């Protein structure tokens, strides 16, 4: 299965078919069970995403169902991605093909990890998520069209507004979600901050 290229640069719109995954509090141990963390690269994680849930459901898990193959929009419920800070979780989703996640709410670290990979996580009310899930299931061949500013999703002639925190919105749409270079550009400020922290001077007098 070929998936879309990894996110790069400014992200303003994402198009793709949806995969609906119902359930609250789906934690990162379920997204990628701990035994798959034993790797020094993320390359193989796409095949292992939801490994335990999938083997338990014997082919009926959304990620195994034929109609959802090639989907890139994941639609979840409440507190998705809770649990450990492992970036393996969004990495596994990314490598399976997910490029954007819609849900009622997300665990904070998961949300931040996704942002750092260029995977927008957008929120909607539980009623709206329910409607989006039903609409996506009813027309799983249709493309969803998600815009980040203003945040909204369109599917089969329907439109729902979404929420996206303004800082994440700015970072994604301006292509500055890759923080490393931005942080490094503050060289003098970094030096000045280190200089005023007593423990950085080993509590030397003066």
């Amino acid at each position, binding site marked *: 299965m070929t998936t879309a290229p990894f996110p790069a640069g400014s992200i303003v719109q994402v198009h793709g078919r949806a995969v609906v995954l119902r*359930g*609250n*509090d789906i*934690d990162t*141990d*379920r997204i990628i*069970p*701990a*035994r798959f*963390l*034993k*790797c*020094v*690269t993320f390359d193989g994680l796409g095949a292992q995403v939801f*490994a*335990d849930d999938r*083997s*338990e459901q014997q082919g009926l898990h959304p990620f195994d169902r034929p109609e959802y193959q090639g989907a890139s929009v994941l639609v979840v419920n409440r*507190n998705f991605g*809770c*649990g*450990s*800070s*492992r*970036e*393996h979780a*969004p990495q596994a989703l990314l490598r399976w093909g997910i490029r954007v996640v819609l849900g009622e*709410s997300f*665990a*904070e*670290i998961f949300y*931040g*990890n996704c942002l*750092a*990979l260029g995977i927008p996580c957008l929120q909607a009310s539980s009623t709206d998520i329910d409607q989006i899930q039903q609409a996506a299931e009813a027309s799983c061949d249709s493309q969803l069209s998600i815009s980040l500013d203003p945040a909204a999703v369109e599917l089969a002639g329907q439109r729902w507004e979404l929420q996206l925190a*303004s*800082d*994440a919105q*700015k*970072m994604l749409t*301006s292509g*500055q979600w890759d*923080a*490393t270079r*931005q*942080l*490094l550009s*503050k060289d003098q*400020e*970094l030096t000045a*901050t*280190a200089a005023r*922290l*007593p*423990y*950085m001077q*080993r*509590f*030397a*007098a003066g």
Partner: protein
Amino acid sequence: MSSATLYDKVWALHQVAELPSGATQLFIGLHLIHEVTSPQAFAALNDLGLTVRHPERTVATVDHIVPTTSQARPFADPLAEEMLTTLERNCHENGISLNGLGSGRQGIVHVMAPELGLTQPGMTVVCGDSHTSTHGAFGAIAFGIGTSQVRDVLASQSLALNKLKVRRIWVDGSLPPGVYAKDLVLHIIRTLGVKGGVGHAYEFAGPAVAALSMEERMTVCNMAIEGGARCGYVNPDDTTFAYLKGRPHAPTGEAWERAVQWWQSLASGPDAVFDDEVRFDATAIAPTVTWGITPGQGIGVDEAVPTLEQTPEEDRPLAQEAYRYMELQPGQSIAGLPVDVCFIGSCTNGRLSDLRAAALVADGRQVAAGIKAFVVPGSEQVAAAAEAEGLDAVFRAAGFEWREPGCSMCLAMNPDRLEGRQISASSSNRNFKGRQGSASGRTLLMSPAMVAAAAVAGHVTDVRTLLPA
């Protein structure tokens, strides 16, 4: 909005710049790394042609994948061996100090750094591991980060972050005998929910918290993350300073005096303003056990598994899933539930005082027939100290296995794991489905003394009935 709390003061001191996104660039004082979440970060750093800005502020150890039976190299598991050699190479190439196996300083990253005096009040501490909140016990702002952030910290010693709200968790009274820091934090999570702390830092305070030892404070802060709070902390006080004094990385001489003064100045004072406050009464807390598949599904050992009617409507689907997965009936009492495996260890409860509390229960008793019980010290230092006072002998005589330090069956990335539907009494921090190495394995979280009690009884039992009067 909070002001004049320790969180506010430490945040302000570490602020480097405001970023175009509106986030704050925050300086990081201590960066801890281990073999699982660092290799991809070093690879990314290399790809970008960047170097480590402050190698002296990054400290490594190996904990997640190490076997606890024989730590001879190469490890039997080639993937584990590859992860460790990759860490060794990255540390060597970048001038980062590694507290490796047999150094006398190796241990679970959140046990190792405090006992070496690396973690200090007023620091910002990060690690690619969500239980970094542990270090907040010292009055540090400490939180877990993802691998891309590990790369950012290696490159710039800073991170792009948004400030959290600060909630004070005030605990009155004192913990009754047989009730431990683990019970306190399980009780808090049970009450506020696993999402209760999202967007917040938790300041743990009040007489019951002030009376806790540093190891107990670490247990409480460790599980702040299980309550949804990215970090939790306790204001530094004399208990903190007494613990730090004389540790290898603690300041000495006049520098120590200046350090204590600075640390004291950071604590939340009477003028501190919190976003909100929640109060608890320690005297009302019982030994607490989780029955379900999130750390919020906890009950007192003398209580029954909640029925659907007793469960708030929004939590009912999860409760039903938990009944099914755990094979428990609503209304069934948790005491008396048979267990198969008893695990004492982890960064939550793998320290000397935890092993002492468990040994007190195990002493003179025998692990019940058919139960596998084992103790994994949190670090080489903990192991040495426990052996020096004969705790290993107490455990062995009672039928527990005494293992080498590491994360072990907390998340089962090493050979220690549940088999099939086995059910464990565990002193660790997560009871998610499949967490302990078997996709269908079941976990009951509890204090180390309660785990020891379960081991000798063969089922969940109230440790208070086994303690000397």
